[in-house]
């Protein structure tokens, strides 16, 4: 059982969290100007880094999305933060 720190609720069991996406993806818009390849890269492309990874997760019980930095090999959690602009609202 891994423990992830929700920036809003504190440390919680991994089973309360859901992986959303790798961080840093920007939705290409508007649709008519986006190529098939660019869209599929946004939708499906992954770096799946071995080691340090930045990911967007959601804490299912509070519904807040968060940025998690962790090591995908050792499974060490390095940092957890609210989405940009969200942390202030919480504090």
């Amino acid at each position, binding site marked *: 059982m891994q423990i992830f720190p929700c920036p809003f609720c504190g440390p919680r069991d991994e089973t309360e969290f859901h992986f959303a996406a790798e961080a840093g993806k920007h939705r290409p818009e508007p649709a008519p100007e986006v190529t*098939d390849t660019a869209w599929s890269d946004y939708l499906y492309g992954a770096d799946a880094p071995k080691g340090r990874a930045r990911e967007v997760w959601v804490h299912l019980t509070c519904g807040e999305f968060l940025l998690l930095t962790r090591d995908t090999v050792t499974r060490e959690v390095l940092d957890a933060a609210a989405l940009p602009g969200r942390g202030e609202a919480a504090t």
Partner: protein
Amino acid sequence: MSGWRHPTLGQIDRDRHLRFTFDGEGHTGYAGDTLASALLASGTRVLGRSFKYHRPRGLWGLGGEEPNALFDVGHGGISTPNCRATLTPLRDGMDLRAVNTRKAARDPLGLLDLAQRFLPAGFYYKTFMAGGWMRWEPMIRRMAGLGRLDPSNRPSGDMPQRNARCDLLVIGAGPAGLAAARAAAGHGATVWLLDEAGAPGGTLRWRGGEIEGGPWQDFVADTVQKVEAAGGRVLTDTTLWGAFDHGLFAAWQRGARDFHWRIRAAKVVLAAGAIERPLWFANNDLPGVMSAEAALHHLVLYGAVAGRRIVLATGNDGSYPVAAALAEAGCHVTLLDAREDTPAAPEGVEVRRGVAIDAARGTRSLGAVRAGGQHIDADTALVSGGYTPSVHLHCQTGGKLDWDVDRDALIPRPGTSPLIPAGAANGTFGLNAALAEGHAAGGGMGSAPNAAGATWALAPMRPDPKGRGRVWIDPQNDVTLKDVKLAAQEGYRSVEHLKRYTTLGMATDQGRSSNFAGLAAMAALTGRTIPETGTTTYRPPFTPIPLTALGGMRRGALFNPLKRLALEPQHAALGATFGEYGGWRRPAKYSDTQAEAKGARETFGLYDASPLGKIEVIGPGAAELLDFCGYVAMSTLKPGRARYGFMLGENGVVADDGVTLRLDDNRFILSASSSHVDHVRLILEEARQDRFDPSRVFVHDVTAQWVTLSVSGPQARTALETAGMPDDVTALRHMQVVETRWTQVPLRAARVSFTGDACWELSVPARHAPGLMTVLEGAREALGGHWIGLEALMILRAEKGYILIGKDTDGITMPQDLGWGRPRERRQDEYFGRRALFTPEAMREDRRQLVGLDCDGAPLPTGAHLVPLDGPARSLGFVTSSYHSPTLNRSVALALVDAGLDRMGDTLGVFHLGQHRTARICAPCAFDPEGTRLAD
């Protein structure tokens, strides 16, 4: 017959005789015995047969390392397979059966041993190919396996799983563990001290000793008292079997009731001790060859003496107390020490120096050994090839190992694991040294508890690759030194290949006493060092643990717990039969599904629609959020009105459908399919937080707070009037919604329909649901309406061509495939899933599309495929919903069909399990296509 019961030694209750049978023969033991000690004392030598050659097998060890003595244990009318004799307490009336044999003492399959030369490691990879493996497999399967499962033994799923936290977790309550726990508890730390055995003390329990000038028992009792006084616990009969991520440890506690513990600790000390290595000489698998440590263990704890004429072969100081104790117990003991430089001979023990056993002799059990060219008669050969530290948990946490020449062992590399090793687990052998290391590991200040006794000296003992005869490395799986040689010769040289090719270490003892020898032999054979050869990966469980420990109480109703309706008792009182739908337990029917479906069309039907998801979207940004997340724009919806729409995934696939209600400018209720509520909520939340200003819109799932009862049918309005619903409810037209009060109860009423008839959805806070149900039931009785279950509702919605997401759509269905292409063509703004609706595949005209099917005769089977009438059979799609419509008095069906819209009016074949029919493609809606019944 050679083992015997000492008249006074042991901690058994000699007043309580326990009768048991082994392979049908009666025996008696004492309360406090294990199966192993009782059988050892009874003189029974052959306790089992090996896996492959069916060679006789006797007791080898103690605790979880025992590879041979495994029994099917019958007790209380049921039996349990593969019980380890060393870990199972004896109980009166037990019926023990050796596994993998009819009778351990006489096993006709023992003749297999004569063919052993043709059955080397991996022989099955080279043969059994003629006619296919299946020809041989039944025979092989019958011969393999250990015990027998008892079909009538169904252990209940009620083992509690408990969570615990502590400052210090100490694994192993031997000298090092005790010292660590004592030191930490002395600072006020909460300590959990765990041990696999039935009492704390570890090797002290049979090796004894004085600590701080007093008997070891006082030290143990005082330590337990200190731990408990500081708020800690001492758990015995508890196996810490696994280390997991982020400092989680799992332990199985045995007792009158078993528990499964999940423990997190600020600090962990690994004091799991070490396991004695065997020695490697010809026929070292004969019953009567036994671990020296185990012999002392059984002697001191149970008064079970391994034999009378004993040869003890060793290369370390740890065996001398064993020899002394056995001599004192009355055995004739000859100690063979491979070293020249040895401690003094214990009283009554003949020590021969520089001598090792070359071969054991005997047929079914040991009769003599040959050592240093001499023949020595012996009924028992105790052996000690040194000690292997139990580093499993260190390695499970990612720890690395270093080869330590002095300790002759792979020991934990400092800093590679959060666990702090201490004592024998760290290769520190000897009481005083273990106490000191434990004390330090527990954070002890000042001087450690003091005891007599130097650290043991030991000489490295190794299997001799040039040794003659059959030398066993893994006694349960019958892996011999020759097998290791063959693996090396054939190139299976990686330790993992060695393990997999020879099955070395894959027996139920998990290679406790065999892995080191296999590794050492492979190293010697390939000219590498032990560290170069490497070790296999250590994984949980440390000791086999019952599946019931992992299963815990999560069974039956607690396995994926069902969601229950607030009105379930009322539905039950009405005679409802329940079913499981999308995680909810809901009424499937009340009487007869066809009659319910027909009645609902004739008068009115009532059903509980509470599981339908209700997600409130509130705030000035609500409309904008819904427009982005939905396929159908909602910002143009007027307050007090409802609109049907879809939610897509970013891949363009329909994720859910449902009606959105606009209550006022800044307040919407989005309905979601009952099994998709969580997913829909997440889509909304993600967009809200990632794309919009989250302070302007709020998303709240209120599904559980409201109960919704639906009233549908030509007499629905009359029913509502009869039930006393307010006028603003009865006056509603199709796709209108109102928030009002019924008596003093908040009521939300919406004219939305999943039946095709005029239908009111009435939602009240869950606590008022029984009252609402009572008045509706009164109206039903008065007017002759019908409660309808899910099954009837399925017919009604299918008659209308209304889809169920996940049933009438699949994971590639896009909205245009459902006849909802207009938003895709018209909308100019960005919305979730938009771009994916324009990939080359999404643009195809011949996509799989929703259609209706018209056929004669019985309903088409759901799951049947549409096929061309002529030419080779291939799937053109499949039937997704199909029912007999009592109103239309014919079958109705929905299907997803390739280019279905182009095939309107065509007749296609219908294939189901080899049977063929035909059906005509038609529009999905079979009932009231003009929608006149909705307009009421």
